[in-house]
């Protein structure tokens, strides 16, 4: 790449009357996307993220409640995790172009594919959480049920966070460039969703840890999101504008309201606890849908690929030039 770096910018305006290019200074091919967009339906994939989080963090709450003598909450969370993981699998199958070929997901074990790793993880986690719920509800095999509860709780955190890797392991700028913080956003959001469900379904007398879990989740998500957006630079725009921006703002308000409401008022009666819980669950769903749509926005607009990559090239070139100078070989010819 030897041409003057601003050549492209200069030319952009001349390219033809119908060119639709956003304001940022960059060049593109008639504003056409660089990346292709998969035929992923927002509710299926956003739902898959959300339900995985709800299930995974829910298994942790179930085990915690079981171990600290909160049987009603424990049972509710075992059931909700089972329902959530079943629904998330249904969402995935629904989204496949060829549902009949779902079995091909388990055709190979491929460490380089988070979708393969994740499918195997779910294949182990699903039966465990299902067994935990069935044993509890049916009142059979208490020992096996407890073992399954603990097993599901150990896999739960992975179930809740692997979806962040699933999203980040793509060329999608809003997801890939956020790979450091996205798992923490997902972990926080998962904790908030599970705590919300526990507030909705568990009795008030058992809900103290649940209310703390809501605070923890909301705080973790808020901090991680802030960090992610500051690191993303211009890509953060995708999380702040359009549909994704509206969803992310709603998520913020709902999650904060649910967590604070739960912490302060959730011990004072069912209606308040349930209301806070519902806000938390809705907030988590908004976060996941927001992340999905932010990714979509960065697939559709070439600027999110071109501008950061240009910046990267420039930085690399400058670093190389600095090294050259350090060696005393003089500045490179312009």
């Amino acid at each position: 790449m030897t041409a003057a770096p601003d050549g492209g910018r200069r030319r952009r305006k001349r390219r033809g009357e119908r060119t639709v290019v956003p304001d940022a200074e960059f060049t593109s091919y008639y504003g056409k996307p660089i990346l292709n967009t998969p035929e992923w339906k927002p509710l299926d994939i956003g739902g898959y993220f959300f339900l995985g989080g709800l299930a995974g963090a829910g298994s942790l709450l179930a085990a915690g409640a079981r171990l600290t003598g909160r049987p009603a909450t424990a049972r509710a969370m075992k059931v909700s995790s089972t329902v959530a993981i079943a629904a998330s699998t249904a969402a995935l199958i629904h989204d496949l172009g060829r549902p009949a070929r779902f079995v091909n997901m388990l055709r190979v074990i491929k460490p380089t594919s988070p979708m393969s790793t994740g499918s195997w993880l779910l294949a182990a986690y699903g039966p465990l959480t299902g067994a935990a719920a069935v044993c509890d509800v049916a009142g059979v095999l208490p020992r096996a049920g407890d073992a399954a509860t603990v097993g599901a709780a150990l896999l739960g955190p992975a179930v809740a966070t692997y979806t962040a890797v699933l999203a980040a392991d793509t060329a999608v700028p809003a997801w890939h460039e956020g790979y450091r913080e996205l798992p923490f956003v997902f972990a926080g959001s998962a904790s908030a969703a599970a705590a919300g469900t526990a507030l909705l379904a568990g009795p008030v007398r058992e809900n103290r840890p649940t209310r703390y879990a809501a605070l923890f989740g909301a705080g973790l998500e808020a901090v991680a999101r802030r960090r992610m957006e500051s690191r993303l630079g211009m890509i953060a725009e995708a999380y702040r504008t359009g549909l994704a921006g509206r969803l992310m703002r709603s998520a913020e308000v709902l999650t904060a309201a649910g967590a604070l409401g739960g912490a302060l008022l959730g011990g004072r009666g069912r209606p308040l606890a349930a209301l806070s819980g519902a806000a938390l669950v809705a907030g988590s769903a908004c976060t996941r849908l927001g992340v999905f749509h932010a990714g979509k926005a960065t697939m559709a607009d070439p600027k999110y690929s071109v501008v950061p990559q240009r910046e990267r090239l420039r930085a690399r070139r400058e670093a190389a030039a600095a090294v050259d100078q350090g060696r005393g070989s003089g500045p490179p010819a312009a």
Partner: protein
Amino acid sequence: MTHSHDAPGPARTATTPDTATATERVGFFTDTSVCIGCKACEVACKEWNAIPEDGMELTGMSYDNTQGLGASTWRHVAFIEQSKPLVERAEQQHQAEGEQEGADVFALAAQGSGSSELRWLMSSDVCKHCTHAACLDVCPTGSLFRTEFGTVVVQEDICNGCGYCVPACPYGVIEQRPHDGRAFKCTLCYDRLGEGQTPACAKACPTESIQFGPLEELRERAAARVEQLHRAGVPDARLYGHDPDDGVGGDGAFFLLLDEPEVYGLPPDPVVTTRDLPAMWKRAGAAALTLLGGLAAVFAAGEAIGGPSGPNGRRHLR
């Protein structure tokens, strides 16, 4: 964007060509400086591979009505209209004419070449058959595989339509076919290679803009061609995707371009996403432990501060 882009190391996966190649690695060198935009490659590809029709739309943006690569477009000829001289000596004359920002290209064209240097860039785009191919790395079913020729091919009967390869490709090449869901892309005419034949597009190209052959040989030929163009006063000529040290370990199908890659709709610095996969798992592991620790602490705090607040009493395992 602070990660180590300075030295894009290869994504160490089990699927890079060196481990799977039995025969010599082959590829395409597309020399866009001789492309005349005839689209013979697009047609030959569609015909040979029996690719379905995917819209007969007039874009109005240029002579390019194909728009981009996709499930049913495996060769795409980009068509760019610029007010920019091709050869250096025209550059000074052009500058003397002053700024031409926002010029109406049709008006310029009407004036003829005496007063303006309108140029057309044409380039036949295709799957890059990356050395480190993200599509192949992320495919959960093993449908995408590395052939004995070092190319990347999808197996229709194994693909389950998950669509994961689509956003993984940093070039926007592979795509799901609507109403089918499965992913399709250029196979570098795998069937023809097996018979010792040249891929259909290269065979059809009347100007030898698309050159097919062993990758090493193509790289040498390309370096010589750039050199030649520079000497002829075309300083903008540059190779794209030829460098084995780039973010995807070099492309099996690489290009000679006459402008920045993004002008042609190509990413200026593509990186195989799986290069960062170990770091991603590390972060996810840390997040999972944070979740585990956080929720354990929450129960510990619940016990310490109040215990179960109702009559059901304290911890007792049934």
